């Protein structure tokens, strides 16, 4: 079914109420829809289908880096700056769940003094709930909702420790990596794969000294990487940061915020001119389809009674499990583009 055929009258009453609330710009309705997404509530899916045509207007900025680097403090300054420029701004702040209890302490709001006191930045805290594949799906869908709601700037803050969480920030249009001169953040950045994803590197806590030295180190590391790069890295070449920038900031003192906003703006401009931004957005959709397929196939593989029947029949006619699985895969591959006529097997 395509978007043009969707009719709100076909939705259940509570889903329609939330959809109308979102259309009227009610933040409570938006918040409830995000809860549905987080909880894997089936009511989220039709809502997303309806709102899909309204997405694509917002800029997404990922902010990642080691815990305590000052990401939230920096986001406080950045979201306030955008708000003051008249940009409708929202933040999704993702933090880990406790592996022991499954609960979480979500404290990013503590740092949002300036943004929350003087502007109406929308802030949603999300716990990763242990499932990191699911987290990427949930944050992606929540960002789509914020986009459809009319936010122009969407910031995704994640802790840059695990690959899955780095990936969430890296799926944005522009990715900002926050580091500090203390405690070997440079080394940690290399280990966590942060050097590969950053469009803008912020050396924060410049008020504590050592920032210039780390900035110079980063400069060298990036230059080295740039020099080692193959002339043609294939179709994914466009996805690699083109021209990483390095900034020094003190989020606590509010220094470097405007420069950060400027660097993000320049990265966007370059990315639009080179075609990288559309490529990134297509990649984001591709990754999302992959994750959804992986989830759906996993469910089908483990739950499908028909599969057992198929295996029984295959065995009965002397087809081994390997040959049967190969044939199944072939059948799925033949349908990867449902709009194209089937390719012969």
């Amino acid at each position, binding site marked *: 079914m395509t978007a043009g055929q969707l009719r709100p009258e076909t939705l259940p009453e509570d889903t329609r109420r939330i959809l109308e609330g979102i259309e009227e710009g009610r*933040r*409570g309705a938006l*918040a*409830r829809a*995000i*809860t549905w997404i*987080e*909880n*894997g*509530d089936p009511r989220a899916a039709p809502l997303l289908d309806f709102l899909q045509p309204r997405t694509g207007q917002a800029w997404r900025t990922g902010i990642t880096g080691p815990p305590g680097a000052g990401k939230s403090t920096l986001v406080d300054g950045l979201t306030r700056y955008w708000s003051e420029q008249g940009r409708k701004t929202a933040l999704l702040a993702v933090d880990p*769940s*406790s592996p*022991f*209890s*499954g*609960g*979480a*302490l*979500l*404290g990013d*709001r*503590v*740092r*949002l*003094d300036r943004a*929350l*006191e003087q502007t*109406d930045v*929308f*802030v*949603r*805290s999300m*716990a990763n*709930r242990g499932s990191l594949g699911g987290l990427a799906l949930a944050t992606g869908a929540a960002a789509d909702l914020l986009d459809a709601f009319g936010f122009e700037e969407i910031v995704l803050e994640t802790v840059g420790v695990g690959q899955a969480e780095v990936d969430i920030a890296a799926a944005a249009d522009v990715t900002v990596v926050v580091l500090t001169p203390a405690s070997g953040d440079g080394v940690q950045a290399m280990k966590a794969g942060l050097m590969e994803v950053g469009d803008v590197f912020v050396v924060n806590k410049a008020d504590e000294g050592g920032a210039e030295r780390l900035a110079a180190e980063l400069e060298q590391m990036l230059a080295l990487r740039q020099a080692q790069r193959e002339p043609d890295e294939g179709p994914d070449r466009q996805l690699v940061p083109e021209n990483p920038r390095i900034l020094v900031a003190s989020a606590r003192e509010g220094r470097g915020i405007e420069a950060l906003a400027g660097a993000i703006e320049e990265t966007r401009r370059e990315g639009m001119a080179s075609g990288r931004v559309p490529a990134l957005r297509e990649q984001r959709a591709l990754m999302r389809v992959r994750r959804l397929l992986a989830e759906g196939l996993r469910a089908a593989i483990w739950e499908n009674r028909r599969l057992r029947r198929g295996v029984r029949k295959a065995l009965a006619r002397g087809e081994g499990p390997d040959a049967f699985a190969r044939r199944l895969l072939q059948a799925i591959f033949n349908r990867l583009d449902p709009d194209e006529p089937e390719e012969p097997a």
Partner: protein
Amino acid sequence: MNAAAPIRVLIGKPGLDGHDRGAKVVAAALRDRGMEVIYTGLHRTPEQIVDAAEQEDVQVIGLSILSGSHMELLPRVRELLVERGLDHVLLIAGGIIPLEDARVLEEQGYARVFGPGTPTAEIVAFIEDHVRSRPRP
């Protein structure tokens, strides 16, 4: 609906007092019982607390207040919640609140006002017992 979804709680510090040790102890206890706890930080206005509760779609708000201005700030939070259509949220408070004020607040819609030194286990149990009977509308 996913019955296993964690309970979401906002822990807020309205007003001017600068002591949040109690609030943090409660927040940690709730997290250890599997709840997702959003902590607002210090010096929030009733408007900011209610904004946060709405955006975070919490089922519970716990306010900690030691400054003595509870009779100005706490009724205002309740008022704003009702105005915004958020009266399904389980509203509780704690800190230094005299018993007679606590009773007044409970008449105004606070589900429970805990006295100083309430064991965290009691607060956890109260939330677990009461939140299930107040589904999100």
